[in-house]
Every structure is written in structure tokens, then in C-alpha cells.
């Protein structure tokens, strides 16, 4: 295979490139991995440089026309503010035509024909984009009262699921038969069934993990919609500005007040019903549960308080990812979760909405970076790349090689410690991160983006506000 063909194959399906073998992935020598990743990066650059308007503007401004080494792409990595760089009034005033226009600059897809006239809420807009374009737009809630929007696609999400078979279900070092989708096992999600943002993953879990809606068990059957989350973010922002009394709440949301009041009043009943159902129907079975560690921990704690212990099969798939932002998590949270679930292990992941691949933790407590992502460690202040050797601490940035319609280059707000070339005691040869990861904003005492891990807090705030709202 020529380098170009290899690069194409890698970009198209890097798991297949490694024959869907986690052992092959983690055993590849560095030089080989670097070579294929660079070729893949060059291919993505060629494909996307002029196809994504914002990237083109940035690359033209810096005069960058080729990538010869990894660090050449660093000036083109998008800062995390890029995905919320639209004028906030577009979102607050439901001007989705203008918001679409902005979004169009961040994707290689052509959204110029998209008609947003019938979109009257964020949820309307998200649904319309989903139904009428290849997009499956993801959002994260933000502390300044706006969402970040990531122009992901349905196709990319489908690809995303394939990694579960390789990264989660396979055991490094053992040659095993690849499991097949759907796994036909029950899944538990201790929150809403549907919604936007990361809740969209639930549909994929139903399809690939459960093989049917009846095997998916949630705390609330309904939908957590984007507009509620946005309201919460705006409450924080307006409070910080001393202008909470000027916040306008849409009549639609106000109309849902009674719904929220009911939910709030019946919370205890919902919880009890949820736990009863899963302890009766699922006891002893192999289950799948993925949530942020805080949510897993809360559920495990509540379950143990009820007297439920070691509820499910030891080979259950429990995944905690997305960080513990804003919540105080005890050091032994994973043991508590294991105690409740009975699972042999709790998979911990390093990942983010802006990265399609997640990176599981090894037995040594290190997050090994899968080759679908090119990692960068940047100087936290200057954003210049630090050396790709030894052990370095700095700001995590990456180039995600998987997306083909949006730009995979991204600078995060995380402080990490990366070891590039000293082999990990677990036997994997991929570069790895220390367990300890912090947000720079937390370190400096600030309040940065609220990601999915604070969603429940956000929702609660919004509910409290609406319930207490004086018309």
C-alpha cells in the first residue's frame, strides 16, 4: 500500500487498520505510529484546509499551506472558544438562521440551503439539523451563558461506537474474538432517556449495546431539552453580571413549569421506582452503564444505602468518563461503584466532546492515547508545543484524525502530564497521561466551561429558577 492509500485507510477506519485488535494498537512501535499519523494528518489538512471557512481564514492569515511535521499544525488548532464564538444574541434571541450561518463556517458541509424559519427553540434547531442534514450537532453548556456547538455528523457517531468493541471489550494482551453489535445486553442510564448534547448517545446505546428500547433503563423516561440547560447557563451568567432581573424567559419554558414542579415533587418516587426496576429485572445480569463518574458514584451510593450490593454480573461494562468537574468525588469512588454493581472493573476514560476517540485507563492508572488522536502538550500560557519526548506537563491539545467534515484540531482547558516514550509497566507502548488531570480554570479559581458532568446541577438550577419564577 502506498503512503497515501495507507493514510486514506487509516483516516477512514483506523480500527480496521489495526485489524480491530487492541493489542496490535498498543504494541505498535512509536516510529511506525508517528509515520502513519503524520501521513493521515497531511491528508486531513489537504482535504479540509479550504473546505472549512474558519480554518481557511486562519491558515491564510498565518500563511500555512503544508504540514511537514506534527508541530506545523499547532498554529491551526482551534481554541475551545471557537465553537462558541458566535454573537450570543443569536442564541438568546432564537436567530437560528444567523446561527446556522456561523455554523456553516465550521463545517465542510454546505448549510447555505438550510431553512431555519420554523425553528423557535434550540431543540427545534437541533432536531431540524438532524433531520435535514448529515449533522448530529452536539452542544456543551457554557459558563458565559452560551453553548458551544460541535458540527458532528451522524456518520461520525456511528464510527464512534465501533471503538467500544476494541477499546472496552477487548483485553490488552489477549487475542480474543471480536464481539459483534448489537451486544443485546441491558443498559442503565441514571438520568433522562432523551435529549441533546451527550444524551444523544443514548440512541446509539439502544441500537448498538441493547439491540432494543426495552433493554434500556433510565431514571426519567422523558427528554432533557437544550433550552432548559441554556436557561441554567444564562442564570449563572446574568447573576454574575448583576442583571438577573433582566433575564427574559421564553413562554414555552414557562409553560413547562408545571411539568418541572411535578418532576421535582416526584423525584423520590422516580428514584425508588428506578432502583426497584433494575434490581428486580437486572440482578445478576451483565449490564452496560456509561456516565460521568459523579453520576455513577451518586447512583452507587444511593443503591448501597438501599441495601443493594453486587447487583450485576462481574463482566458488566461500567464506564466512567467526562471528568468530575464541579462535583466533589471521593478517591475511592470507583470502589464504591464496583461494590454496588458487582463489576470486576470500572473503565475510566479520558475524552471530551471535541474528540471522537476516548482513551481508557490501564492497570497502572494511565490513560493511553489511541492512534486515532495525535496528542500535543502545549505551554499553558503561550500555546507553543512542548517537546514530544520524556514526561511533560502542560495544556492538552489534539488533532482528531477521525472526523472528515469538521476540523479535528483542538486546544483544551485541561492540564495533563504526558509520558511520550518510557514504556508503561502495563506493557502498552502508546503514549500515556497521568491519572491526575485538572482544568486550568479550577486551578486559577475560575469557572470555565460546564460540561456534561455538571448537567444535572445545571438542570436543577434551571428547575429551581423556573419554579420560583415570578411572572
Amino acid at each position: 500500500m502506498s503512503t497515501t492509500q495507507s493514510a486514506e485507510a487509516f483516516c477512514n477506519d483506523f480500527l480496521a487498520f489495526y485489524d480491530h485488535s487492541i493489542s496490535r494498537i498498543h504494541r505498535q512501535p512509536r516510529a511506525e505510529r508517528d509515520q502513519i499519523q503524520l501521513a493521515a494528518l497531511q491528508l486531513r489538512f489537504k482535504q479540509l484546509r479550504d473546505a472549512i471557512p474558519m480554518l481557511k481564514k486562519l491558515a491564510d492569515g498565518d500563511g500555512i499551506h503544508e504540514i511537514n511535521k506534527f508541530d506545523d499544525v499547532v498554529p491551526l488548532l482551534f481554541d475551545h472558544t471557537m465553537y462558541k464564538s458566535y454573537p450570543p444574541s443569536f442564541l438568546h434571541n432564537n436567530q437560528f438562521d444567523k446561527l446556522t450561518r456561523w455554523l456553516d463556517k465550521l463545517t465542510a458541509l454546505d448549510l447555505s440551503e438550510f431553512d431555519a424559519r420554523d425553528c423557535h427553540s434550540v431543540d427545534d434547531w437541533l432536531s431540524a439539523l438532524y433531520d435535514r442534514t448529515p449533522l448530529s450537532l452536539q452542544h456543551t453548556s457554557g459558563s458565559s451563558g452560551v453553548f458551544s456547538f460541535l458540527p458532528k455528523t451522524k456518520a461520525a457517531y456511528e464510527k464512534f461506537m465501533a471503538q467500544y468493541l476494541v477499546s472496552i471489550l477487548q483485553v490488552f494482551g489477549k487475542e480474543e474474538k471480536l464481539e459483534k453489535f448489537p451486544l443485546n445486553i441491558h443498559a442503565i442510564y441514571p438520568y433522562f432517556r432523551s435529549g441533546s448534547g451527550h444524551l444523544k448517545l443514548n440512541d446509539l446505546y439502544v441500537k448498538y449495546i441493547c439491540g432494543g428500547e426495552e433493554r434500556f433503563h433510565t431514571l426519567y423516561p422523558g427528554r432533557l431539552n437544550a433550552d432548559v440547560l441554556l436557561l441554567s447557563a444564562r442564570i449563572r451568567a446574568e447573576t454574575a453580571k448583576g442583571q438577573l432581573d433582566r433575564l427574559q424567559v421564553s413562554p414555552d419554558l414557562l409553560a413547562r413549569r408545571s411539568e418541572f414542579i411535578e418532576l421535582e415533587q416526584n423525584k423520590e418516587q422516580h428514584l425508588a421506582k428506578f432502583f426497584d426496576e433494575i434490581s428486580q429485572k437486572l440482578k445478576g445480569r451483565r449490564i452496560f452503564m456509561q456516565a460521568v463518574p459523579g453520576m455513577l458514584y451518586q447512583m452507587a451510593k444511593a443503591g448501597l444505602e438501599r441495601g443493594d450490593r453486587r447487583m450485576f454480573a462481574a463482566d458488566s461494562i461500567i464506564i466512567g468518563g467526562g471528568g468530575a468537574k464541579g462535583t466533589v468525588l471521593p478517591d475511592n469512588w470507583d470502589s464504591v461503584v464496583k461494590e454496588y454493581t458487582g463489576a470486576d472493573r470500572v473503565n475510566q476514560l479520558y475524552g471530551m466532546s471535541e474528540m471522537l476517540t476516548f482513551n481508557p485507563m490501564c492497570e497502572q492508572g494511565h490513560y493511553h492515547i489511541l492512534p486515532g488522536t495525535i496528542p500535543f502538550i502545549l505551554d499553558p500560557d503561550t500555546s507553543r508545543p512542548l517537546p514530544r519526548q520524556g514526561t511533560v506537563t502542560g495544556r492538552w491539545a489534539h488533532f482528531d484524525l477521525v472526523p472528515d467534515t469538521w476540523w479535528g484540531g483542538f486546544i483544551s482547558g485541561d492540564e495533563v502530564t504526558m509520558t511520550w516514550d518510557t514504556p508503561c509497566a502495563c506493557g502498552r507502548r502508546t503514549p500515556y497521561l497521568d491519572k491526575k488531570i485538572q482544568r486550568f480554570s479550577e486551578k486559577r479559581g475560575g469557572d470555565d466551561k460546564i460540561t456534561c458532568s455538571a448537567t444535572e446541577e445545571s438542570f436543577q438550577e434551571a428547575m429551581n429558577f423556573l419554579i420560583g419564577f415570578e411572572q
Partner: protein
Amino acid sequence: MHKYRSGIVIRGQYIDDNLISFGGRAAGIEFYSPDPRKYLDRLPLGDPAKLSDLYQMSFEDILDYLVELGKRLKFESNPHLQESYETACLTSAVTPPLIKAQYRSVQQIFSRELMREAAEQSIGVAQLEGWKSTPLRDGRILNVRAFGARALHIIAGNSPVVAAMTVMRNAITRSDAIIKSPSNDPFTALAIARTMVDMAPDHPITKHLSVAYWKGGDEQVEKVLYQPHVIEKLVAWGGLASVKHVTKYVQPGLELVTLDPKRSVSIIGPEALSNEETQREVAKRLASDIGAGNQEGCVSARVVYVLSGTDDQGLSKLNEFGRRVYDAMLVLPETVSTKPKTMDQELKRCLGTARLNDEWYNVIGGENDEGAIIVSQIPERVDFASLLANRVANLVPVDNIKEVFAVVDAYTQTVGVYPESLKKDLRDKLPLFGAQRLTSLGYAGVPSLAAPQDAIEPLRRMCKWIVEETCDPSKVPPRWETGMVIVGGD
């Protein structure tokens, strides 16, 4: 690591024993200062009767002292201020030329006539010197005098002028002050106090001042000092972080006076853009309000609403004006504004992203961390407006006057306005939405000592307003006859 040996001043005595190490707010400086815990018994005044020596002096006597002090606070000839300046160059957020200008203005606080004006405007010298007498409707004679109080001042460190103002106000009100120096300027208040000790160690005004440093929140020190039997007023500058650990001590007998940091804005009418000459003039004024002191002060303008209109013509004029403001900012005198010491990296990233969104934001300058003017092309400020600093300001076009009220909020301090007629139109309504001080555009950075500050009158608040009244039963209906509490009404 630069190490500095420092001291404390307690009531006319300079002490530099029992030194312990403190790290300055900026990395790279460590200073040694006497352990305040060893002096907790000496810092308080103790018996309030000891304030009486200040009443042996007249207001003119007080001014005499302060004027003499002012002469000795000439930067070029004061080694204490010079040492303070040296360390400020390491810890301050602004550049040496600006710091030097700040230190030079310390002396200017001690002008006889400016100090007299400050006293006259807020209290009235007569009421400091004696009792103001007024016959009231109910027949009594009301006499009121402004007395001094025992106070502790937690001062701000972003300008040496704050320490100077505190010393001056303390003397004028015949008060006793313990000044807690801030970690980002542990030397200026001390320098002034040392100058007072050098000049007149036994003078009452010198003896009613102490200056020390301790880490804010040090309970061992604070729970001893922040008590009503030690101090009656706690005057606190600085943000929530500095005030948060203080509020728990507030109780009857211990009053908290806060001077909060805030943000400032500007409002500009359409007349400013009408022709080139006016644009230049207004641009110069706005550049000063933005750039003076490198935008580090509460008074510095960050968001600017311009009644340019949001149509193409209006935007075109505003973009032209924005360029003029940027150009004017870059040529401000070195004593007023320089290229900032550092550029906040988060702000820099936001600026870069805004620059790419050129359909909605026109970013002028900012490629070399020299400052920038962001001209919104829509009637909305940038999402990261709360980060604006390092000479980066945001001009926002609006269509009508009703929209300008959105520029102020509970955290707005100064509003620079052009032209004068617009200020007059706004002055009765704007304060309802926020805004504490409206001023002519260009003068945001030079508030007067004689005016209210942060919507309070600090000199008045620092005093105890004592009442002495005479009620003659033949003139004031007595309670034992009328049974009434309020008399003298219609």
C-alpha cells in the same frame, strides 16, 4: 528570587525585629516583615481616650502637618518611596513609567487646598472642628459633630495613591488607623508611615497610625484585631476575596465600609462621529479613558456604547472611529499609558477567535499584545467582555438611547459620556440601572478627592456622627406630659 527586608510602623516607631518570610503576590519576590502576631498587643490604640490629643489640634494644624509630610513625599528625594517603587516594578501589573507616575502623584494628595476642599465638600470643616447647631421643629437644639474613630484599613494595592489617601483621610477625620498592607503592595503605606516617623515621631498624627502586613484571613491576627473594643470601623478595599473573610467579624459596634472594585464604561452620542475633527477629539478622550494606567483601574473603560446606528453608514463611521481610538491610544504619553506588561492569555485567545469572526467583530490591532479595539458590527458586546483588560476595549453600535441602559449594571462604577447634553439626559435614569459616577469623556481616570467614591462618601463614613441636643421642657413638649414619642409635627 528577590528578597526584601521590610518592617512595620506602630504609632511613631519603626520596627524590624521578629522577621518572618512572606511571598509577594507575584512570583519572584519574597519579603521579610515582622511577625504581626508578636505585636498584637501594641497595634490597637487601646483606650479610646487616647484620641483626645488630636482634639488639641485645629484643622489648620492638621493641614500643616500633612503639607509638611507632602513635601517629604517627593519621590525623587524619598528613599522609602524609592524602595517601594523598586519592588512595585516586580509586583505591579503595570509598567515602570506608569508606576513612577503613580508614585509622583502621592505628593499631590497633600495639597493644602485640595485637602481642605475634600473636607469641606463631604463634611464641612466647621463640623469637624465643632458642633453644627440647628433648631429643630420639635423645639430642641440639635448639635452635631463629626468625631474620629478607631479604624482598620484593608487597602488596595493597585496604586500607591490609595495608601496616601488613607493616611490623609485618617488625619483629617482625627481618627486612628491600623493599615493592613496588601500583598501586591506591601511597601507604600509603610514608606509613608516611615516618612511620618522620620519627620515627627511624637506628633499626635504620627502616633495615630500603624502599618503592618499579615496574610489576609490569618485568623490569629484578625480575631484579635477585628473586635468592637479594638476598632469601630473596618474600611475594606478590594474584591470579594478580600472582603469575604472579613464579614464574619462585622457586628454591632464594628461597622464595615467597603470600596468595591467595579467596571467602567463609556457612552458616546452620534455627534462624536459627525466629522473628522470631532472624531479625533473624541477618540483622544476615549483612548485616555481606556488606556490610562493600562486599563488596570476600576475607572478604566472597557465596553463603549456608541449611538452610531447599526446600518451600513453607521458601522462604517464607527469602524473609522475605532481605528482613530486605537491610533490615539498608541500615542498616549508614557506617563499615562504604555504597551502592557503582559497579555492575559485567555483574553488573547478570545481576541484571536473574534478576529476570525470578522462578519460580526472588527478587531483593530492586538497582534503584538499592544492593546486592541474591537468594534462589534452588531449591537452586542463580545461574549468575553468580562475579560477585557490590557488595553483591549469593545465599541458597540446602538440605534437609540433606550439601548444604552444595557451597558450599565450593578457592577458599573464610572461612565464617561460625550457630549455633555447626553450626560444630562442620562443622569437621572442611568443610576437606576447601575452607574455611580458620570463624567465627561476623557476624565474617567481622574476622579476628585472631594467627590463621593463608589456611591458613598468615605470621609463621612469614617466619622462617628455624634449628637448633642438640648431639650428645654418649655420648648419641647415632654413625654411625661404628652405621652408622645414624636412631637413637632403638623
